[in-house]
């Protein structure tokens, strides 16, 4: 199914791709065909830096259930960090 569902978000951080670490500038979050995961469709996140070229990409393709768990894990980890350190 070609949903063409995509959300783009500007981010700041680092990712490790096939050529080592690089600065991340954007995350493309889609719900569409995966390229590798064995699902019909999946929650896909491409962490990219368009300035560095098309091969600078860190990719994940997750089942819907996995993606939901990841959201919860991120939220929990952020909340615990805020609790210990205060919002940064």
């Amino acid at each position, binding site marked *: 199914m070609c949903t063409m569902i995509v959300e783009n978000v500007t981010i700041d951080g680092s990712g490790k791709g096939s050529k080592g670490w690089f600065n991340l500038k954007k995350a493309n979050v889609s719900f569409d065909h995966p390229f590798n995961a064995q699902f*019909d469709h999946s929650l896909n996140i491409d962490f990219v830096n368009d300035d560095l070229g098309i091969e600078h990409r860190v990719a994940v393709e997750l089942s819907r259930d996995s993606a939901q768990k990841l959201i919860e894990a991120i939220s929990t980890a952020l909340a615990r960090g805020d609790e210990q350190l205060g919002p940064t």
Partner: protein
Amino acid sequence: MWNDWQTDSYEGQTSELVKIKGYQDDEINAYVARPNGTGPYPGVVLLHHMPGWDEFCRETARRFADHGYIVICPNLYERFGHGTPVDVAAKARGEGGVSDESVVADAKASLDYLKGLSNCTGKVAVLGHCSGGRHSYLAACRVTGFSAIIDYWGGNVIMPSDRITEKQPVSPIEYTKDLSCPILGIFGNDDQNPPPDQVDQHEEELKKHGKSYEFHRYEGAGHGFWYYDRPAYRQEQTMDSWGKTFEFLSKHLS
């Protein structure tokens, strides 16, 4: 048809990259697979699927060439840059896909390329899988000169208004009245896009406008059931629909 040749007949084909002038006169790459011989051979414009201008498409092109067709498969993602097919397709996906306008122009340029070959009969089909099925339908409605179209499980042929975007500004079903050639549709009944009720709606629209069509719906198959690298692959339905494909092309490109 499968295994339908004589063991003492000459066999040979060439496949290579060529450059054509596509949308907005951009030079784009296209993969061409053609039988070696003087022909004349009918042609096929193969529009690649959402996962990109990839190995499946190249192998599919060569298979059609094996069966006596000159095939051109343009890189519809050319403007997103170059890299591995997956990296390029990911870039396209991240930007909301390729615009319909760009695809239709690249399909027209591909048609013109084939019609300009001295060993092409000038009878050309347009076909594609997944988004390539949708794009093929758009091309067959908006470009004159195709003799047949095959839509393999093209999703979003029927688009509700909330799915319309700048790049996909018109639901392809709206162009049905302009369809200029017979259509073969191959679908899996377990598909979610297009689901069976949308295939029915599409059929009704074709009937309403008096178009020549042939739809085949397969039980036990979902989206992308030809993809031998995916769990969606269904051997029996794939082989049957390859047969339907060659029967249809033989009928309309002769």
